[in-house]
């Protein structure tokens, strides 16, 4: 596989050079998400950004490299709001809450699992620590650029400065431990511990405020509290794993009390409390799984969750929770949503722009609009068809997956040594 990697890097380098020239994808059906699909559409990108999107007579720069997409579909790169690609980890067994722990410090930027995601058309991903803790750590938002050798190469702004992820919290049974100790073994204890953490953060925030510009009065730096203050200030979004209808309402109650911004994740019983979710104006990141069950708190999970949320007027996006579902087949989620009653437009938005909103990245990704990042995919056919393949995936104007490339094709199909370092996270996630 290593010589493949070398070849792939060489190819990527060649493509990157080609980006000095604009690229125009024309002839296909362009789905901008923010508008109606455009037959025989044109997408022009240059220097990593989208220059133009429009119909057949859209101006194409003379020096542009032309990609003929006749008969194909072109849409924004997919946004996966919840994944475990990258071979990261998270908080350890020493405590139930780890706001100081960054999964970004543990991810392997060369992981083959990123190739799975690229082969599935995913260009932006929220990589999360697991749900076995009340708060397992800071998540990281990644752009799946193809030349990554350091985690910085994948961070949204290529730097640890500023906000580059959210924070993962959980309630329900995954974070309970029968032995207790530093972990809760009831739901009541779980909520009490989370509230106590928020109260500590409010206290820390108050001290900082009161200190004002006087550095001598500021409290000592505290990595846990710094992250939690970002949460209280609404800069860092809480990605909250929750399943049952009563656990979902507990999240809404905590949000009401402390005013943080939250995305509900999995939300198996969303159909039962869709109106409450909509009234709170809280978005949901949901999953499609092919059959019910697996554990007690998910037995009422239904493919109709998306339709119930759409009807109630609540925003939602899909996620893979990879390895729970396979990044390569992420588009299935939208199709099964439509099968269960979601509108086609919303289903496609739930794969792209809705997810971007949930990561505070809607100004950069999730739709094909001039000025946005040139993250797009070329599909062999309708995005909701089982027979459709992701043919090409582009991130910031650079092609990072090409099914026609024999070295990269196995990232989509599998086969001998296609995924050298793939690790299953099945037991501890979802």
């Amino acid at each position, binding site marked *: 596989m290593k010589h493949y990697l070398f070849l792939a890097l060489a190819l990527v380098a060649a493509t990157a050079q080609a980006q000095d020239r604009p690229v125009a994808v024309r002839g296909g059906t362009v789905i901008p998400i923010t508008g109606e699909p455009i037959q025989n559409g044109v997408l022009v990108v240059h220097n990593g950004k989208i220059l133009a999107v429009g119909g057949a007579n859209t101006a194409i720069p003379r020096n542009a490299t032309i990609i003929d997409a006749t008969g194909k579909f072109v849409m924004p790169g997919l946004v996966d709001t919840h994944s475990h690609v990258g071979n990261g980890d998270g908080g350890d067994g020493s405590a139930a809450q780890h706001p100081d722990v960054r999964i970004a410090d543990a991810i392997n930027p060369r992981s083959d699992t990123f190739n799975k995601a690229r082969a599935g058309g995913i260009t932006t991903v929220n990589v999360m620590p697991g749900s076995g803790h009340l708060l397992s750590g800071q998540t990281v938002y990644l752009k799946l650029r193809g030349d990554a050798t350091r985690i910085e190469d994948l961070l949204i702004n290529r730097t640890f400065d500023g906000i580059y992820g959210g924070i993962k919290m959980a309630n329900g049974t995954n974070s309970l431990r029968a032995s207790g100790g530093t972990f809760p073994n009831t739901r009541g204890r779980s909520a009490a511990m989370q509230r106590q953490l928020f109260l500590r953060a409010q206290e820390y925030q108050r001290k900082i405020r009161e200190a004002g510009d006087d550095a001598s009065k500021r409290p000592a730096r505290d990595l846990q509290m710094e992250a939690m203050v970002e949460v209280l200030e609404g800069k860092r979004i809480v990605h909250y794993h929750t399943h049952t209808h009563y656990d979902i309402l507990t999240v809404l109650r905590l949000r009401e009390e402390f005013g943080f911004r939250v995305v509900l994740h999995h939300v198996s019983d969303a159909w039962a409390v869709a109106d409450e979710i909509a009234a709170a104006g809280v978005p949901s990141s949901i999953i499609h799984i092919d*059959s019910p069950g697996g554990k007690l708190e998910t037995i009422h999970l239904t493919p109709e969750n998306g339709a119930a949320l759409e009807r109630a007027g609540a925003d939602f996006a899909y996620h893979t929770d990879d390895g729970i579902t396979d990044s390569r087949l992420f588009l299935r989620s939208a199709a099964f949503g439509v099968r269960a009653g979601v509108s086609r437009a919303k289903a496609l938005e739930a794969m792209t722009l809705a997810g971007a909103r949930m990561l505070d990245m809607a100004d950069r990704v999730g739709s094909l609009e001039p000025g946005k990042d040139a993250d797009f995919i070329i599909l062999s056919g309708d995005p909701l068809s*089982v027979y459709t393949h992701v043919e090409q995936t582009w991130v910031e104007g650079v092609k990072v997956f090409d099914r026609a490339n024999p070295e990269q094709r196995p990232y989509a199909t599998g086969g001998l040594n296609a995924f050298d370092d793939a690790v299953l996270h099945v037991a501890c996630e979802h």
Partner: protein
Amino acid sequence: MKQYLNRIWMTAGLIALATVAVQAQTYAVRGEIVYTMDGEPIRDGVVLVKDGKIERVGAYGRVRIPDGYEVTSAKVVTPGFIDAHSVVGLAGYLNQPHDQDQLDRSSAFQPELRALDAYNAREELVVFLREHGVTTLHTGHGPGALASGQTMLVKTTGETVNEALVDSVWGVAFTLGRSVSGNYTNPGSRSRAMAMLRTEFLKAQEYAKKENPARDLRMEIMGDVLAGRVKAVFTVHGATEIQSALRLQREFGFDLVLDGASEAHLVIDEIKAARVPVIVHPTMIRPGGEAANATMEMAAILHRNGIPFAFQSGFEGYVPKTRVVQFEAGVAAANGLPVAAALRALTLGGAELLGIADRVGSLRAGKDADIALFDGDPLEYTTHTVGVMINGRWVSTATR
């Protein structure tokens, strides 16, 4: 044992027939396209059903619908789908200790465990599969033990196992590979596993030679395997394990069915030469662990090589608690398997592999009236199953 069960099945059948006599059940199922699997698909076709069996199949107009036949129409009509290997009914959807009977951990070698003693005919997942159009299941003890127990064939109908049974003992579920040593301390290695297995087959050979031996449930079923009366279903993934299964088969001459076989592409010529069928791993199997080298093109590879194969839902320790065979077949069709071959493997191909093509797998006069109705291409994500008939009775009219 089998005879005894057949008797129960016949009794159930007689009761069913008695009911039928009181209330004749005659239906006409009309489809814009009818995939009979018995010749070319019929445009605007009709399937007549009488007393649980298919009475006649043909184009509308050429086949007259007799008076009194209740007519149901759909876009697409197919034979009920066959899930060629499952643990549904033994492994329940709650995934709690009380509904997980697919693997007994007291010993790695227990071929005497019968599937029917643990099958829950009312399990949610049985209902779930039925409503999606899966009408026949090969189910039973799961992978993960040297021999976990027996497997059987059922229809996804009935409130008891007796009502569901097609064949009470179809095979014994063997597994080779690292998962066995993960579940048991003995065998602790793959080579130890092979030594244990060979020893058991040798013992069974000796037992079979004895006149009037003391009854031994384990030796009796192993004798059935040796004699080819029941299949040896070997769940294997690595090429090494596939070759080990083929080697064992050559040594002991049993009727081998390869299951999973995610590295079959590495030893395809050997499988072809051995003329053994393959119950292919779910197309969407996670590419990790023993299945790290799985390819979504496996069904296409088997098809290209003329190796008989069928689709399975398989076994997942967590989610999805069951897979749905037409979803797996759809992804296979997107990865090189011709659509017609995918539909055939879901129906007649599965029936042939399981040896029940005289009863199910195609829409042909005289066969069981197991029929699935769809509002579009059955392999497509956005298509719904809109009706399911088993043994000539509507068992679902839900939209799924």
